[in-house]
């Protein structure tokens, strides 16, 4: 059984695997961008806080 057949129970049948793969990869990329941007900002604030408290 191929991946395409396996996922054909989802909406869009024989294209389900491809459509959801494309949407899934896009969603993961966008979420990663957003989360890493937020985390980098927090990290920068934390490291600056440390730097100022040392001086």
């Amino acid at each position, binding site marked *: 059984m191929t991946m395409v057949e396996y996922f054909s129970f989802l909406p869009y049948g024989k294209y389900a695997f491809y459509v959801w793969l*494309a949407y899934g990869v*896009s969603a993961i990329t966008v979420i990663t*961008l957003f989360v890493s941007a937020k985390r980098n900002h927090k990290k920068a604030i934390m490291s*600056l806080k440390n730097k100022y408290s040392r001086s």
Partner: protein
Amino acid sequence: MWKWIQRQSSPKIFYQTCTNLTPWFFWPFIGFLLVGLYWALIVSPADYQQGDGYRIIFVHVPSAILSMMVYAVMAIAGGIGLIWQIKMAEVVAKVSAPIGAAFTIIALVSGAVWGKPMWGAWWVWDARLTSELILLFLYLAYMSLNNAFDNPKTAAKASSILAIVGLVNLPVIHYSVKWWNTLHQGYSVGTGGLKDPDMQIALALMFVASIFLYALLVVIKAKTEVLIREQNSRWVKDEVSGAIL
């Protein structure tokens, strides 16, 4: 308006503007995304040739347009930084690069995933695909060049020149489907493009959502960059010590 733009060249005011703008980009992004997905996945009918497989277009086309738009913004902001020595333009250029690279990756991956059922191949060395891949390499080159210098000023200068030279690739990508006999289909927007009004609405909504996403990521990333660059100034010290995490 012009005065407002001029005031943004002050890092402190620019930082404040980014903070103020964040909700104005976040909520429209969420709204347009949800309505756009609803229109793309439920309202739009299946295509008469490609069945439901065509629905990949609703992430593919907006991300492909954004990959080029972000590059143009990056090169123009870099140019403004070069000519007028405006540091905040350098910041916008620098933080745009990873976002543009991500849009390029989404466009390439979603295109490959669409190509497999429609063309029978994940990848072909078609003019459109190859020029878009070159765009990804330009983004990566820009990012590594920008990271190669310790001095942010030198980094911005060198990488901005690279970005401006790389601008020649944008018309190549855009016109590639006209200039060469490509396997990639022609324009999806305008004459010969999508005909169904629901498909056009879905594409427009997803495109607007993508623009808000780009703007949102720029304001978040720019704040981080400004804090690091201006870490020796008084207002950053106040801002950081007042920040609640």
